């Protein structure tokens, strides 16, 4: 087990140094930075979807709220980028609680359906509210003042590191035990004193905040955001795809999922852009039918990492 912690720190160090010593082109460099952010969002989705078992189809709402609040703060007050992201993220977390507190009482498909409603209503309202979001035209961020696109690579890496650490913490602390209990049987959990409301709210808040911060990152990265894209159903879906294809409920999984998704999107898309949706769909179907723990499950099968008791 120590090996994994060591591996994580080593991976972090390698990724931190890599662009300084390796001849990585600007484009690839930027895409890797973006991949870190996607992995972080997938992990954050997984806290709710994988650990608690509540599949959200509406996480784009928090991505959008985080992104637009951060963007507005940067535009209006010239707030330091990092601060703007965090405030945006916290706003997104609070927004998640507003709709999450009542809807988290629902379970299974009921919760999922409610989140679709939340996500779509958020999208429509955000697009209409052009005073804040710029409407269908979107919002441009100032091109100077913040970190350069080149620097965002490291910010993305920190986001990912934070998401991984929170994932481990959520999984291995007592809270992780409560989450597993809630996922298994929410009523039995209540009967031994686990307050489902409290821990689900906590996880949703964390998840929403993280996704919101990532929304802020994305705004800085693109220097342009528009509500139809930030709040889109497809964005919510991409989080699910990354987590599920990689391995729902695991920690390595969503990261792998993000890498796979970005590879599909960036490298295959240029030459075979017509096939990517179908590719996602096929992957999803295969994984649900044959390996519910996704790529991570597949890896574990190929090479059992568990030390023998």
């Amino acid at each position, binding site marked *: 087990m120590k090996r994994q912690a060591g591996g994580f720190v080593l991976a972090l160090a390698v990724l931190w140094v890599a662009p300084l010593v390796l001849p990585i082109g600007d484009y690839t460099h930027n895409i890797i930075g973006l991949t870190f952010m996607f992995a972080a969002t997938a992990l954050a989705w997984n806290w709710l979807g994988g650990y608690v078992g509540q599949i959200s189809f509406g996480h784009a709402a928090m991505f959008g709220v985080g992104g637009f609040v951060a963007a507005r703060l940067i535009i209006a007050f010239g707030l330091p980028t990092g601060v703007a992201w965090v405030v945006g993220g916290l706003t997104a977390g609070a927004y998640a609680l507003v709709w999450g507190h009542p809807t988290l009482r629902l379970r299974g498909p009921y919760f999922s359906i409610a989140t*679709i409603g939340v996500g779509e209503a958020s999208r429509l309202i955000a697009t*209409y509210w052009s005073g804040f979001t710029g409407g269908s035209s979107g919002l441009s961020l100032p091109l100077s003042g913040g970190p350069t696109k080149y620097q965002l690579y490291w910010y993305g890496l920190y986001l990912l590191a934070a998401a991984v650490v929170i994932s481990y913490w959520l999984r291995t602390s007592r809270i992780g035990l409560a989450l597993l209990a809630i996922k298994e049987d929410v009523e039995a959990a209540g009967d031994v004193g686990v307050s489902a409301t409290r821990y689900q709210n906590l996880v949703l808040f964390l998840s929403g905040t993280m996704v919101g911060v990532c929304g802020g990152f994305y705004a800085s990265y693109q220097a342009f955001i528009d509500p139809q894209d930030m709040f889109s159903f497809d964005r919510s879906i991409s989080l699910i795809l990354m987590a599920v294809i990689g391995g729902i409920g695991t920690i390595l999984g969503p990261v792998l999922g993000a890498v796979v998704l970005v590879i599909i999107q960036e490298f295959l898309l240029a030459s075979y852009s017509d*096939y990517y*949706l179908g590719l*996602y*769909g096929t992957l999803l179907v295969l994984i649900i039918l044959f390996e519910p723990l996704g790529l991570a499950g597949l890896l574990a099968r190929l090479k059992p990492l568990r030390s023998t008791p």
Partner: protein
Amino acid sequence: MREVFTLAVSAVLLAGFYAAMAYGLGLIYGVLRIVNLAHGGIIMAAAYLTWQLFERFGVDPYIAIPVALVVFFALGAGIYLGLVRFLPRGPAGAVQSLLLLFGVWLIIRNVAYLLFTGNEQAIHTSYATRSVTVFGSSFSVTRILVFAIAVVALLLLHLLLTRTYLGKAIRAVAQNPDSCTLAGIDVERVRIFTFGLGTALAGLAGVLASTLFAFNPSFGAAELLKSFVIIVLGGLGSIVGIALGACVLAFAEVFSIYVVPPYLTSAVGFVLLVVVLVLRPGGLFGQRVLR
């Protein structure tokens, strides 16, 4: 006053289409306890099928209905036999089926994209822009036709479910699959048939939609979401509830122009969805099905 009349009639006409759209989703949920996320994809595929028949062979969209029903019944039964059948039952299966059928939707979208490109298509029948005037208000002929077909379909479905052996078996399985096995009903066959029928109904909705709206491969998402709203409003899994749910949604949307900007009409449904799920999980009319 006349405006209110016009709006009310448009709402009723819209409700007809909405009900047709939600039938399939509601039926599959009622019997298999599975939310068919591929529903929107089926609607889109049926719109393309109708368009192809119209463009290539000059088949009127409404004549294409039987073809669509057969094609999509087969497709639905195929999806059940090839995929859905292997999922575990119970809550774990519910979540997995959501993701699985979402995958199916993505594949359908991609196929449509490869075949017909991402361009917007529409069916231009000779009567597409015609309207009739009733009491000084005019209504589109297409919408009236769509409404009539939806009502007929609802009646036929009702007869099928109440008068035939198969229909009774479907209702029995919806209520309690375990005791059906005891009573000698082939539950698996009922499931196959239901999935096929639900998909065929989505196909019908697609044919109707193709005469009302322009479509491209990502068409169907809004229709899927509205179908959710309707079956939740009407109580998940109750067919009469669906008709009522469709009315509520249609009236709420049409009359919301007095309260919110027209732009936000479609948000009305989603807000309604969340409120109803939280306050009355059994739907406005159904009994509470959730604990």
